[in-house]
C-alpha cells in the first residue's frame, strides 16, 4: 500500500501517454504547423471534444464516484464560457471601435469610446450601456478568476441549500435540472445583461492577434484543451485514489454509514459539487472560444442530460470511461448528424441518420444501462483480467488509436 501514486494507478500514465500521442498526431497533421491533412475546423472540433471530455471527468467525479446525479453541470460549463466570452467580446469590440474612431478628425474621449463599445455590443438588445455584470470585462485577469469563481459560488450556494436539507437521489437531480433551466431562461432575457438569446459571438478572434491565422489559434486552443484535460484527469485521479476517494465512494454506497463514522457527508458533497463546477467552468472557458459563439440554449437542461449519457455509456466510476464516453458519443454524433453516414434505404422507408441519431443514442443509453452498466470502460476489465489480475490496470490504448485512425480517414 506504500507504492507511489503512478504505481497504484497505471491507467493514469497510459491515459496521459495516449493523450500526448494524440496531441502530437493532430499537431503533425494540422494546417498551421503540420502537413495540413486536418482542416482547421476539424482541429477545432477535436479541441472542443477534449473540453467535453474534461467536463465528463468532472461529471464522473460527482456522479460516478460520489453518487450525486447532477443534471446541471452544463450550467457551470456555460457560465465559464460566458465569463471568458465577455472579455473576448469587449476587447475585440474595443479594438474595432478604437480603429474606426482613430480616423475621426477629433480624437475620441474615453467616455465616447466606452459608449461606442456599448452600442456595438448591446445594440442588438436595444441598449447602449454596460450592465453591471460587465464591470470587469476589460480585465482578463479578473474574468479568468470569474471563470472558476462564478460557477464555484453558484454551486456552493445551491449545494449548501440542497445538501443541508438532505435532498438526495432523483429529487436532487430534478433540482439541478430546475437550476440549469432557470439560469437558461434568465439569460434568454434581454435585460439579463448578456445579450439575451443572441449570446456572445465572435469569440474565436483573439483580441490584438488579428494577424495570427485561425489555423494557428485553433491549434493553440487544442493544446490548451489537451493540457487542461491532462491536468484535470491527473487531479481527479489523485483525489479519488486516496482516503478522500474512499470517503466519497462510501457516500455513494451508504451515506448514513459514512455519517456514523464521523464524516460530515454534506461538507464532502459540497466540496465535490463546487470543485467539479469549477472544473466545468474551465472546460467551458476553453470550449466556447473554439465554438466562436455562446448563447443560453447551450445550457438548456438537455445538455446536462447528454453529459450523464456520455458518462453512462463510457462507464461511470472510472475516469477513463468518462473520457471515452464523451469522445465516442460526440464524435459519432457529429458523424451522424453531419450527414457523413449514408442513409439506409429500406424500400418503404429511408432511414435518415440526421433524424434517427437521437433515437440511436437514446436506445444505446437504455441498452447500456440495462445490459452493460460498466459501459464501454467495462470492456477494459475483460482485457485487464486476462493480463493482470488487479482490476484497475486497464489500458486506454485501443480506443484512442482507433480514434486517430478515424480522423486520418476524414
Amino acid at each position, binding site marked *: *500500500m*506504500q507504492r507511489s501514486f503512478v504505481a497504484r494507478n497505471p491507467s493514469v500514465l497510459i491515459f496521459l501517454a495516449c493523450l500526448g500521442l494524440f496531441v502530437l498526431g493532430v499537431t503533425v497533421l494540422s494546417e498551421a504547423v503540420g502537413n495540413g491533412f486536418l482542416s482547421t475546423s476539424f482541429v477545432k472540433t477535436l479541441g472542443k471534444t477534449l473540453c467535453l471530455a474534461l467536463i465528463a471527468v468532472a461529471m464522473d467525479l460527482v456522479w460516478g464516484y460520489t453518487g450525486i446525479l447532477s443534471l446541471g453541470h452544463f450550467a457551470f460549463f456555460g457560465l465559464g464560457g460566458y465569463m471568458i466570452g465577455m472579455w473576448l467580446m469587449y476587447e475585440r469590440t474595443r479594438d474595432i471601435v478604437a480603429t474606426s474612431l482613430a480616423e475621426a478628425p477629433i480624437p475620441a474621449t474615453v467616455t465616447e469610446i466606452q459608449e461606442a463599445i456599448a452600442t456595438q455590443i448591446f445594440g442588438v438588445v436595444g441598449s447602449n450601456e454596460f450592465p453591471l455584470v460587465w464591470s470587469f470585462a476589460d480585465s482578463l485577469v479578473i474574468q479568468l478568476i470569474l471563470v472558476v469563481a462564478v460557477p464555484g459560488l453558484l454551486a456552493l450556494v445551491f449545494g449548501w441549500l440542497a445538501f443541508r436539507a438532505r435532498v438526495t437521489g432523483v429529487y436532487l437531480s430534478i433540482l439541478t435540472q430546475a437550476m440549469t433551466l432557470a439560469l437558461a431562461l434568465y439569460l434568454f432575457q434581454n435585460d439579463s445583461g448578456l445579450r439575451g438569446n443572441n449570446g456572445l459571438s465572435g469569440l474565436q478572434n483573439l483580441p490584438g492577434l488579428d494577424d495570427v491565422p485561425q489555423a494557428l489559434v485553433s491549434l493553440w486552443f487544442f493544446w490548451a484543451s489537451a493540457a487542461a484535460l491532462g491536468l484535470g484527469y491527473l487531479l481527479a485521479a489523485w*483525489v479519488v485514489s*486516496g*482516503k*478522500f476517494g*474512499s*470517503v466519497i*465512494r*462510501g457516500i455513494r*454506497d*451508504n451515506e*448514513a*454509514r459514512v*455519517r*456514523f*463514522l*464521523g*464524516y*460530515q*457527508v454534506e*461538507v*464532502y458533497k459540497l*466540496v465535490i459539487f463546487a470543485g467539479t463546477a469549477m472544473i466545468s467552468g474551465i472546460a467551458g472557458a476553453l470550449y466556447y472560444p473554439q465554438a466562436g459563439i455562446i448563447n443560453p440554449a447551450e445550457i438548456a437542461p438537455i445538455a446536462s442530460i447528454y453529459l450523464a449519457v456520455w458518462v453512462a455509456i463510457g462507464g461511470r466510476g472510472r475516469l477513463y470511461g468518462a473520457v471515452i464516453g464523451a469522445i465516442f458519443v460526440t464524435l459519432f454524433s457529429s458523424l451522424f448528424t453531419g450527414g457523413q453516414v449514408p442513409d439506409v434505404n429500406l424500400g418503404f422507408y429511408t432511414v435518415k441518420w440526421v433524424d434517427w441519431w437521437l433515437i440511436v443514442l437514446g436506445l444505446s443509453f437504455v441498452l447500456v444501462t440495462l445490459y452493460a452498466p460498466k459501459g464501454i470502460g467495462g470492456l477494459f476489465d475483460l482485457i485487464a483480467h486476462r493480463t493482470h489480475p488487479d482490476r484497475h490496470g486497464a489500458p486506454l490504448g485501443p480506443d484512442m488509436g482507433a480514434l486517430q485512425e478515424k480522423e486520418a480517414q476524414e
Partner: protein
Amino acid sequence: MSSTRLLEVSGVSVSFDGFRAINNLSFTMPSHGLRAIIGPNGAGKTTFMDIVTGKTKPDDGRITWGEKNISLRGMSEARIAREGIGRKFQKPTVFEDQTVHQNLLMAQRNKRGPLAVLFYRAGGKDLDRVNELAATIGLTDELARKSGELSHGQKQWLEIGMLLAQEPRLLLVDEPAAGMTLAERERTTALLVEAAKTRAVVVVEHDMDFVRRLNCRVTVLHEGSVLAEGSLDHVTSNQQVIDVYLGR
C-alpha cells in the same frame, strides 16, 4: 461498577405519528463494561440507538455524555460519532466496493475534515494499527480483498473492526449474532467482551443464548421504557418480564 458515568439518558420520549416509540426512557451507562438490551419486537431498541446516535431527534428528555456532561441533543450524527459513539447496524454495512484495508483505514480515528483527508497519506503507525485490528478480527489474509466478497460473518467482524478503529468510548451494537454460525458467535462474543474491558459496549440482542454467553447486566425494554434491569437470572425470574417477553 466503580467507573464513572459515561452516558445518561433521562426521561426521553419520541413519537412517530402519535405512536410513542420511546416513552420516558431512562438509562445510564458507565465508562467500562458490557450491557445487553433485550425486549420484544417494537420495544424501541433500535429507536433507542437512533436517538443516542442522533439519527432520530427526541421530543423530550436529556441525553448527557462524558465527564463534562455535554448534551448530545441537537448534535449531528457525524459530530456524535466524533464525540466517541460508534454504532454497528443490524445488517452488516461495510463498503462492499472497497477493500478490507480501505474500510479499516477510513474508519480509523483521524482528522475528518475534507482537506485533512485529501492530503492524508497513511503513515507507518496507521498501517500497523490496521494490521493489528485485522489480526484481532481474524481478517489478516483478507486485507486486500474487496469486502463485498467476504462471508456474512466476516462482514460482521469487519464492521466491529471498523468500530474499534474509530476508538469510540461507547459502542452500540445491534444484533451482532444474527445469522451467524455457532463458531462465529463464539468469536463475536470474545470480541465484544474484550472490547468492553476498555470501553462501554451496549449490545441489543434477541437471542437469549447469546445474551447468556455475554454474561453481563441486562436491561429489558418494553413499549419504549425500561421494564427491568439486573443480571440475566434476575430479570428472567421477573414476573412482568415473563409475561411480556419470555412467556410468548
